[in-house]
């Protein structure tokens, strides 16, 4: 019984480490360096070719930061920025930017007019 309970605790903590939720407030505190390029609200980038982050999907933002960190996604600026970020930092930042409302949105296929769909 105890063995089973221990196994359950172990399995649960493993799940928690894989899906650890980011903390929005912590993310906001850590977002100062990001704001320099992506804008204070994550929706008004200072350069025309910088992305808007506000409202983007949390898991996508985390995936992108992880990919810059591992080096499979390459960008001269971002590769440097993620060097000192921990997994928790990236989860917090992803949670924060996903929670901010911005101009990013989805237009469902069903609502597209005049494109043959």
């Amino acid at each position, binding site marked *: 019984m105890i063995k089973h309970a221990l196994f359950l605790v172990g399995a649960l903590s493993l799940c928690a480490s894989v899906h650890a939720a980011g903390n929005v407030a912590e993310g906001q505190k850590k977002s100062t360096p990001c704001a320099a390029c992506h804008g204070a609200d994550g929706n008004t980038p200072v*350069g025309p*070719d910088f992305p*808007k982050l506000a409202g983007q999907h949390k898991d996508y933002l985390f*995936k992108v930061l992880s990919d810059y960190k591992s080096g499979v996604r390459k960008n001269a600026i971002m590769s440097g920025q993620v060097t000192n970020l921990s997994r928790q930092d990236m989860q917090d930042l992803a949670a924060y930017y996903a929670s901010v409302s911005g101009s990013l*949105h*989805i237009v469902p296929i069903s609502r597209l007019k005049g494109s*043959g769909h």
Partner: protein
Amino acid sequence: MKKLLFLFALLVASSAAVAQSAPKGNAEAAKKDKIAMCIGCHGVPYYKTAFPDVYHVPMISGQSEAYIIKALQAYKSGDRPHPSMRGIARSLSDQDMADLAAYYTSHKN
């Protein structure tokens, strides 16, 4: 005279190169037949990629125009890893990318 001709040729060549490097985006052209390959994923609310990792595909409507072009070019060059996006981006010309960026940056609900 020869020198002048050479200069003129150089001017034509360089302006052609500039025009080629920054084509003007046409949202209508994208809408007509280029977005078909995007909407199967980016037009489905909360759609998730199944390969190689599972996560929501990014929202691209309302994104910065020049960033969309840069992202597509990064998939084409291999600076971004996603296999499906690499395949799609390799099939796009600079004009296609400009058209798609013009379309998605101004995309309204």
